[in-house]
């Protein structure tokens, strides 16, 4: 998993609430055996017209989205299905962090497991970011994980929460499976205590 430390990038702006994972990646793409290559299906049914041509109105097809690495959504982002493919699609497209006022629980955990940083902003800061991005679609945001701060276009700062354990995993680029495996003896002891006679 790629480590996350400090990241500055332009923004992909989708300031609506309750964006569900069926929109992020429709179910017909879930027959894959891989984690890679899902970026082309990201928001497929919003991104492409029924005839398959790009919908020019959708944010991913706008010129300023090219090379943007921070996705800005509303509240309850990633609700619905547990499909981790939603995270893989976002990352394959090029997103390294998602900014929202709140995240759906399973999506939030899936994001952290892949090194996609969920940045939860308080409503006022979030609104300021949206305003700045609407004014200048090429505006940049800086996310600094060690200090848990963001620097908005214009220079104002905001902060975001993250659990210390998750932060460590992201800073070091490590998969928590290693941590779990290190408890093998404790797991065996637990299983022995709970064995059915």
């Amino acid at each position, binding site marked *: 998993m790629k480590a996350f430390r400090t990241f500055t990038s332009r923004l992909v702006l989708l300031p609506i609430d309750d964006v569900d994972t069926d*929109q992020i990646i429709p179910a017909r793409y879930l*027959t894959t055996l891989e984690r890679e290559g899902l970026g082309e299906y990201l928001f497929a049914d919003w991104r492409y017209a*029924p005839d398959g041509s790009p919908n020019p109105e959708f944010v991913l097809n706008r010129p300023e989205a090219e090379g943007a690495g921070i996705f800005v959504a509303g509240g309850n982002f990633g*609700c619905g299905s547990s*499909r981790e493919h939603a995270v893989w699609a976002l990352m394959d497209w090029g997103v390294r962090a998602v900014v929202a006022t709140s995240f759906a629980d399973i999506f939030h955990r899936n994001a952290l497991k892949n090194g996609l940083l969920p940045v939860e902003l308080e409503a006022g800061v979030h609104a300021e970011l949206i305003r700045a991005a609407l004014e200048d679609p090429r505006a940049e945001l800086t996310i600094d994980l060690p200090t848990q701060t963001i620097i908005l276009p214009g220079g104002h700062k905001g902060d975001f929460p993250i659990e210390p*354990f998750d932060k460590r995993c992201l800073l070091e680029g490590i998969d928590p499976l290693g941590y779990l495996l290190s408890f093998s003896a404790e797991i065996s002891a637990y299983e022995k205590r709970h064995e059915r006679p």
Partner: protein
Amino acid sequence: MNAPRTMLSKIWDAHVVAQEPGCPSILYVDLHLIHEVTSPQAFARLRERGLDVRQPAKTVATMDHSVPTDGQGLGSIEAKAAAQLQRLEDNCRDFGIRLHAIGSPTQGIVHVIAPELGLTQPGMTIVCGDSHTSTHGAFGALAFGIGTSEVEHVLATQCLLQAKPDSYEVRIEGGLPQGVTAKDIILGLIAEIGVDGGEGHVFEYTGSTIRALDMEARMTICNMSIEAGARAGMIAPDDTTFEYLAGREHAPKAEGWERALDAWRRLPSDERAGHDRSITLNASRLKPMITYGTNPGMAFPVTEAIPDPGEIRDPVQRAALAKALGYMGLQPGQRLLGQKIDVVFIGSCTNGRISDLRLAAGLMRGRKVAPGVRVLVVPGSQLVMRQAEVEGLDRIFRDAGAEWRQPGCSMCIAMNGDQLRPGQYAVSTSNRNFEGRQGKGGRTFLASPLTAAAAAVTGEITDVRRMLN
């Protein structure tokens, strides 16, 4: 432990293997359910790392999401879906995991087969790479959905890293009026608290209405806890639970049964245990519910009129409702009663069990499906299907002109060819009405099996209470 504890705390405390300061708990998983869509990448990583499945005996697999329901077996299936099913078969064989494959007499939707086989039991921690894992909470288990990376963690260690959620008591009192079902209760709750109302919490459903429900109705309610943003939903076990479980294939037997009963009876929340949040609903005021928008929270009693975005002050919410109505082709002020529909889907892990089929069949007996309407009835499992056939329900559906299909997730997620065409309206007993969920451009109205059956015979959204004597 002397302090009063909620059921959530009792189960949580009993499953913590270890916890270091400042780190999430390491939570043991009693039962890991898997299916073809969310497991391949997990097994692939396991193999890459040279790891084994720690507890194959605590892992159970089924084929459900992509399986055809037309009785043609895997012959008609699309190549990638076939490859995914084959991969599940290979993984289960190589790692010694019991698989309820297509062709097996016990195959079906994962959240239907585990309870009916007695795998789901009170006090357990149960996980699956599927958000409707909350279903199993109906038995007083702590059951929740996980992503594919977490599936890998559980395969390798039988544990998960988890932070303990807060507890939210949902108390439901009052008698259910005629024509109103468990599905209407949960749609009513989500409409009340919103699709993120339960975020960070596990619901505990309590109250006389809940106590009066049978296990399948309890499963319907717990199933859709996720749609309110909750981590899980639980109902304390009682005699209804124990009677359901007694004698099932994997339920404890003999002295094991008595020991289990003893432990299970100590699970319900202590009387003085506090929850972090609570709400009380009056079931006697409920009406048959239906969704009108593009998430499960956009729902109302079937008799009401579509809300007007113009009357919503918050610009984000106003835009969201306008977008949803645009997608659904509905007008503010329009009454949904009488709205013509094209398809009815009766099935899914929410309402695909025998009691759901009985409700629908009871309404459709002696009646015909409305002209131009396609009705799919998809039993949740092979066992449900055979029971329905013993009871003659299949004949009722066929005589009415509905399609009696083989078990699978089918049109709930539309991964197997059972899907809506763009613009088609469906009344569905499933759990999600997101844009395109049941087929690109498809328009879903979520409802109970009774409301769905009523729409099947009238061809339009109907107040089922008018059809009951």
